[in-house]
């Protein structure tokens, strides 16, 4: 996946796109795009006129008509090529994903318990297969039994293996990934050809691609511009007759084709496909083009704290012994209680201890009994053979432990606990033989660049909301430090849902990311729901995008992709319309100069002759399409500088630029053409 090329014009893709450009000339296909369809009609008429001019006089020379015809045909082909190359790139991207899962043998579990090996593409929804260490998982499914470490690098590019197990929120497996250890029983969750990836490929290929509402609105606007220019060109005929001027069909069709917004018309679908393709390149599978567009409109972003705002897990940062307890004794107690603690927090306590105390035993005394953390006790610890009982755990559980044993709970400890919480830390209280000996401070590590990213989002007008299981005090501290606008503390899935609904009721669009089955309702409720690929099937069904990387920061990227999509459409529309000014100044004098010589005054580009002026305008109109394909595919960059500033900027570049560029372009082309015509 990550190895796929980022070059815009891969030779193999160009070749297939070239072929497609001709196939797409089929009028039935062209009808989908009213602007380009009218160009096709004009091209057909020009073909007829070209033949006519071979034998008859009055419509200009054969060579001139032929040139116009060829240029119009090229205009069509360029527009088709833009769409075709966008499709080809999207398809290539999706194919490289699909390849990973072709023809893998699947060990299908029969009803009688026996195992039959079948090809992966014969697997039906509901089939159960087993995988052992070293097997490639044949298709997408959900683990119903067992636990395994899995190498997902084929799709995510991430080499560290992940653990997937039945029953939890990490029960999904993806076809093409590899089981590294243990064995699992998996139920197939999709029919062949109906996986998300298959849907995405269909979307890119155009078979099931539907125009998004925004695309429809733009098409209507472009169609009405086209109609205006039909009116302008049709009425020009009687006007010219009044002025005793004859306008050749070639000139009239050229004027028409130049005026209608062919630039944006030709690139419109390419821009849409490229948007989905960019999402795919970011390893996000979208279920519809609309989802990408909606992402650009998001007002509120719900983000999980862990993994998004903070780096994975908390770390021990300080030992606070109770009054009267020696620092070294306290640290040793902490180490002792954490020796068997495999959690990242436990490990970080030992790491911190190694820095602060010079020497202590790294092994527990023989025959020690380790007490595992449970949800009821909310504490873990150790009982050593000499009868020492060390427990570390949440503040209230250790306090109960101490008070039940008749020991007092020091005020100073309580103060310390509060201070740590208010600074965003998590206090772990340690008791030795039911007597409190001190507090370990655990701190969340906020990602170094996250504050800037939130600042960027704020400039985009997006409100960020941190979702965390922490208590409100800790949550508030981290929220402030990371620069999020709001937080939901001690969050349960229902809280997310409630928050989303409240924001939506106020007219906001909400995006969120989730993985668990209990996230599914909220994912479905959110306007943009991104499910992690590692998440449950229910979560993936509920969302409208799936992130293959399981990366919680991905939402930010998705929003930018959505905005880019709209901006590219808007700027190229502006550019296309602005171009018309210069084209008018090229063609209109050319039409009338023969009968109204005074109109030489508006030939401000001083074009060589009426024929060269018209040819230059249509040539410019044609070649601007391929020149803008890279921009259409890559998208116009989004800069979070505020809406008005962004409008000013794009208006200057694409509006004013769109007026000036064709004046220069047409003049240059005319200079070249003048060399060939006397």
């Amino acid at each position, binding site marked *: 996946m990550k190895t796929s090329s980022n070059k815009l014009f891969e030779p193999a893709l160009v070749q297939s796109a070239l072929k497609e450009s001709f196939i797409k000339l089929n009028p039935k296909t062209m009808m989908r795009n009213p602007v380009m369809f009218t160009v096709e009609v004009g091209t057909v008429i020009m073909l007829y006129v070209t033949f006519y001019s071979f034998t008859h006089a009055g419509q200009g020379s054969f060579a001139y008509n032929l040139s116009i015809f060829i240029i119009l045909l090229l205009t069509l082909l360029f527009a088709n090529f833009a769409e075709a190359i966008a499709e080809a790139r999207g398809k290539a991207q999706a194919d490289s994903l699909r390849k990973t899962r072709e023809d893998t043998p699947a060990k299908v579990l029969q009803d009688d318990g026996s195992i039959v090996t079948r090809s992966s593409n014969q697997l039906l929804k509901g089939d159960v297969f087993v995988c052992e260490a070293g097997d490639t998982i044949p298709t997408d499914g959900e683990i119903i039994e067992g636990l395994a470490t899995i190498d997902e690098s084929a799709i995510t590019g991430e080499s560290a293996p992940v653990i997937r197990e039945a029953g939890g929120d990490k029960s999904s497996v993806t076809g093409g990934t590899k089981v590294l250890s243990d064995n699992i029983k998996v139920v197939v969750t999709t029919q062949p050809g109906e996986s998300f990836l298959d849907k995405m490929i269909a979307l890119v290929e155009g078979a099931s691609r539907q125009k998004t509402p925004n695309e429809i609105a733009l098409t209507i606007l472009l169609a009405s511009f086209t109609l205006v220019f039909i*009116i302008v060109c049709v009425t020009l005929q009687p006007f010219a007759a009044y002025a005793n001027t004859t306008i050749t069909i070639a000139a009239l069709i050229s004027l028409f084709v130049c005026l209608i917004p062919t630039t944006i018309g030709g690139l419109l679908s390419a821009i849409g496909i490229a948007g989905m393709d960019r999402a795919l390149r970011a390893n996000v599978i979208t279920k519809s083009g609309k989802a990408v567009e909606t992402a650009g409109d998001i007002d509120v972003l719900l983000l999980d704290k862990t993994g998004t705002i903070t780096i994975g897990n908390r770390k021990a940062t300080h030992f606070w012994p109770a009054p009267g307890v020696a620092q070294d004794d306290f640290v040793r107690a902490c180490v002792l209680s954490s020796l068997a603690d495999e959690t990242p927090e436990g490990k970080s306590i030992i790491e911190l201890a190694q820095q602060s105390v010079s020497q202590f035993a790294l092994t527990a005394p023989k025959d020690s009994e380790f007490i595992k953390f449970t949800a009821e006790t909310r504490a873990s610890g150790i009982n050593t053979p000499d009868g020492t009982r060390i427990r570390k755990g949440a503040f209230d559980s250790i306090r109960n432990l101490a008070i039940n044993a008749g020991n007092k709970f020091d005020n100073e400890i309580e103060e310390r606990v509060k201070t740590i919480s208010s600074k965003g830390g998590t206090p772990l209280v340690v008791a030795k033989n039911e007597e409190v000996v001190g507090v370990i401070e655990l701190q969340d590590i906020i990602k170094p660049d996250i504050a800037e990213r939130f600042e960027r989002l704020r400039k985009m007008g997006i409100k960020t909301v941190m979702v965390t299981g922490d208590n409100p005090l800790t949550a508030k501290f981290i929220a402030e430090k990371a620069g999020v606008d709001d937080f939901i503390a001690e969050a349960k899935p229902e809280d997310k849902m409630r928050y989303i609904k409240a924001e939506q009721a106020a007219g906001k669009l909400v995006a969120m990311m989730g993985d668990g089955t209990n996230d599914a309702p909220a994912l479905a409720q959110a306007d943009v729901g991104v499910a992690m690929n590692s998440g449950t099937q229910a979560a993936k069904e509920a969302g409208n995008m799936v992130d293959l990387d399981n990366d919680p920061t991905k939402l930010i990227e998705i929003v930018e992709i959505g905005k880019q999509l709209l901006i590219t459409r808007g700027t190229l529309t502006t550019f296309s319309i602005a171009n018309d000014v210069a084209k008018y100044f090229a063609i*209109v004098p050319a039409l009338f100069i023969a009968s109204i010589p*005074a109109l030489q005054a508006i030939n401000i580009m001083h074009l060589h002759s009426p024929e060269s002026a018209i040819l230059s305008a249509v040539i410019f109109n044609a070649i601007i399409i391929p020149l803008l394909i890279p921009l259409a595919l890559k998208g116009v960059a*989004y800069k979070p500088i505020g809406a008005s500033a962004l409008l000013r900027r794009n*208006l200057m570049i694409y509006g004013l630029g769109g007026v000036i560029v064709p004046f220069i372009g047409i003049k240059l082309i005319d200079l070249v053409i003048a060399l060939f015509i006397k």
Partner: protein
Amino acid sequence: MNTELSGILISFAITLLIAIPLGKYLARMFAGEKVWTDFMKPIENLIYKLSGISPSQPMNWKQFLKAMITINSLWLVYGFFMLMFQDKLPLNPDGNPGMTADLAFNSIISFVANTNLQHYSGESGATYLIQHFIFMFLQFTSAATGIACAVAVFKALRDKTTNDVGNFWVYLVRSVTRLLLPLSIVLALILAFNGTPASYAGKDQFISMQGDTVNVSRGPAAQFIAIKHLGTNGGGWFGANSAHPLENPNYTTNIAEIVAQMLVPIAMVLAFGYFTRRKKMGWVIFGVMTIGMLMLMIPTIFSELGGNPAIAKMGVSQSTGAMEGKEVRVGPMATAYWSTLTTIVSTGSVNGMHDSTMPLTGLWQMLGMMINAFFGGCGVGVLNYLIYIIIAVFISGLMVGRTPEFLGHKVEAREVKIAALITLLSPFLILAGTALASYVFTNYGAANWAVKPSAWLNNPSYHGFSEMLYENTSSNANNGSGFEGLGDNNIFWNVSTGIIILLGRFLPIIGPVAIAGLLAQKKYIPESAGTLRTDTVTFGIMTFAVILVLNALSYFPALVLGPIAEHFTMLK
């Protein structure tokens, strides 16, 4: 300072001085707040009672438009028959004949639609009864119709989410009782005291110094001329309109009339800002419109003051500028000032002959009417501007990467479709109308109509083309001024411009009201930092660019064949 220049600067200063408080007043009055004209309430209640109207009844945009169309159709139908049979009705001291069917068709549409194209001449073509009780009545109601529809849009855009755009009848009645009627009384008095006739007496007679007997048409003109300007109607009592010495006797009345026609259009723009509680937006729109006005006015003034190069070539001095078709008591600068304003605000009254202005002046006049939203007609100017805003919002929304929204409501396919259709309508009506006329002129010159097509044009060639283009443009813009020099009282022009006026009036009213009604039904989206604000200078520039580009692209070829070709040929 130059007297002529101070004349127009003072005119504009007076206009603003009255229009700004008027805008505030209109916003408060239509919002139903307490205003000093509340003493009109008993009269209004009487009108509601007599007409069986329940003024508190809310209307959705469809009901609102239905009421608007119903009453306008009614006026159209009975007015048509009154015009045809005016000779059989009272108050006809001069014995004027009834109108032909096609002229009645054109005239009644033209007055219902606030256009006042007038293919007849007031002196000989209409009786006092018709002038007073049909035409003047319609001058009030057509202006009030435009204002009422604009207020519906204001309300729809102000309220966050609503179906109720307000009661059409209330807006209509209040526009008359609390705006047009009081102002008309003041203006009519000014005119009457300056010499405009105001009685029902028939023609007067005097013997000139040469000894000829001259018949002078009179009538209750002062009140008619007052509403003609205040309601941006433009239909003159006399055929020569405000160039006629009784319709516009002196420089004072000239200032009074030019101020009067700008008042409501400017006040409505500001009222939009005050009503929707987006004062800044009102001022930004005002700024865009003023700059647009100046861009048309300054070149007009220069081209008129510069005189005619063809006359200069003959060695004739033109120290006062181009004087052909101008009134000496008014002068070229005030005529140029008037000609710009009357074409941008759709009044269409004239104090000099547009046909005689320089070719490029004709270009600016036509462009003003093509755009039709630099202040524009009573109420409808704001509605036309709204269409440009919707297009600008849509394109600029895309350019900043957000689904376009306007005042807290998403602009989607349906609104864009309506806006696109309305944008399309003007070039269609103007260009198709002119193309048809050109075609008839070129191919059927001998058709047996009241005026033969071959005799339509006083000036063939490019200027003749401008005459036809102007007539269609003026009809579509509901302006009603004529380039003149066009033989227009015949079945072709009466019917074709009648249809153009009708479509060019009602579709551009229905469209914006529908858009506003649809937007108001949508969920309200609060503004965020990512929202593109529409009350900024940047957005004003964007709208301005949309207006310029859309109109330039639609009309450039036609304008090249008319005024531009005439101009450059003249210079040769």
